[in-house]
């Protein structure tokens, strides 16, 4: 039992995580490419034209995975934050910081694709639909997190303050989502829902799931790339960083 904990902490140290992440990144890129390829093939070639929405509905194949990822990344981020507060591990804060921009991009993509889907379907770029509105607020939450961390100079304080914000956010996300939904039904908003749109055919579901996997792998790969940069920035003056082959100039 004790041994296991020690092992865990070994990989939770930036020093051992840095090379580990370096080894994992190419694999995640490969998986992202494979799933992305299959996903795109299903999106454009396997999935039939929708009788109601024509070809426009193909946007859903990236809209839904982006929306899923934006919510999922926020939860993962809050998880790392909680871990960092509870165990005081340095890596947790760095992971949370590395995930935030990717999450913000996913939230942005879900807004952007939502707007591009909405224009032909609803006749307007923006509709105060419950999903779009909550995605917008989620986007604000990400921006707030990034801005708070950027404004605090001491990285340890930035990590902890960010962690509290992420935890407060994660408690609020379901409340916000629920309240926006409530608000929307009360006001008889848009009648066409974005995801339930056409009856979900099996190919469509598969396409969406595979695309979601591709997005997932992409997010992990890019977050790991970023966390490697953050580790180097924060640990710049430690011995192990000075002994890295890529710093000594023997590597690369």
């Amino acid at each position, binding site marked *: 039992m004790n041994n296991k904990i020690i092992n865990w902490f070994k990989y939770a140290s930036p020093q051992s995580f840095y090379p580990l992440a370096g080894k994992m990144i190419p694999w995640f890129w490969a998986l992202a490419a494979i799933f992305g390829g299959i996903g795109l093939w299903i999106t454009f070639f396997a999935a039939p034209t929708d009788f109601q929405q024509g070809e426009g509905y193909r946007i859903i194949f990236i809209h839904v995975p982006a929306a899923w990822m934006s919510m999922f990344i926020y939860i993962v981020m809050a998880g790392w934050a909680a871990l960092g*507060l509870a165990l005081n591990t340095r890596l947790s804060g760095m992971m949370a910081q590395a995930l935030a921009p990717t999450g913000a991009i996913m939230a942005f993509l879900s807004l952007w694709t939502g707007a591009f889907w909405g224009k032909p379907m609803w006749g307007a770029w923006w509709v105060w639909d419950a999903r779009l509105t909550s995605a917008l*607020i989620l986007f*604000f*939450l990400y*921006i*707030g997190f990034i*801005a*708070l961390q950027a*404004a*605090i100079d001491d990285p*340890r*304080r930035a990590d*902890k*303050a960010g962690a*509290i*914000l992420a*935890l*407060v*956010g994660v*408690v*609020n996300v379901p*409340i*916000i989502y*629920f*309240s*926006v939904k*409530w*608000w929307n039904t*009360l006001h008889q908003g848009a009648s066409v829902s974005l995801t339930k749109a056409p009856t979900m055919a099996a190919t469509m579901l598969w396409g969406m799931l595979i695309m979601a996997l591709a997005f997932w792998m992409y997010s992990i790969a890019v977050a790991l790339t970023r966390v490697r940069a953050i580790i180097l920035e924060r640990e710049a003056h430690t011995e192990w960083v000075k002994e890295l082959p890529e710093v000594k100039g023997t590597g690369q």
Partner: protein
Amino acid sequence: MNAILAVIRRDLLLAMRRKSEVLTALFFFVIVVSLFPLGIGPEAALLKKIAPGILWVAALLATMLGLARLFAPDHADGTLEQMVLSPTPLGLLITGKIAAHWITTGLPLVLLAPVLGIQFDLDAEALGILVVALLLGTPLLSLIGAIGAALTLGVRGGGVLLSLLVLPLYVPALIFGAGAVEAHISGLGAGGHLSLLAALLALAVFFAPWATTAALRIALE
């Protein structure tokens, strides 16, 4: 409990010594609310429909105004350090400070809102619901706002950052608060909105002082 009362007494005494801050927020509320009809036009039916929304958004902004100064003066003169080091649990002292913030900014808004509501031709019952909704909602604003104020304490560009952090978290309060009055006007009954608002308040009373305390300890490290 004594400690909470002592902090409230202290902060109210301080607020009395610098009345202008409290009054500024209050006048801001009145002015913002009065600007909307000028921007939208004097059509009574439309104004009546959007009145709850306007009053609530103005209340959010007015609360924001004083929020940056919730902990900043105490931080600047070292009182906050003493609070952290006091034998009294910090959570209690912070609860007291939040309560005092509500008494000085939230409560005046609640009392003033019906007067402004009359300008928008809300009937007596709608005004009553507006007051109840604000009575439940403004403490919620103070509680959530305190977390943001603690997180941005002593941070570069804290004021702007504070609104970026806090306003998205105000969304549920805004929706249920303004929704209560609207639901009443459209004949749906405000009970559901008000009980949800009360539930949020209960959650925040439990959770917000804890988060604020943690954020303050980090800010002072």
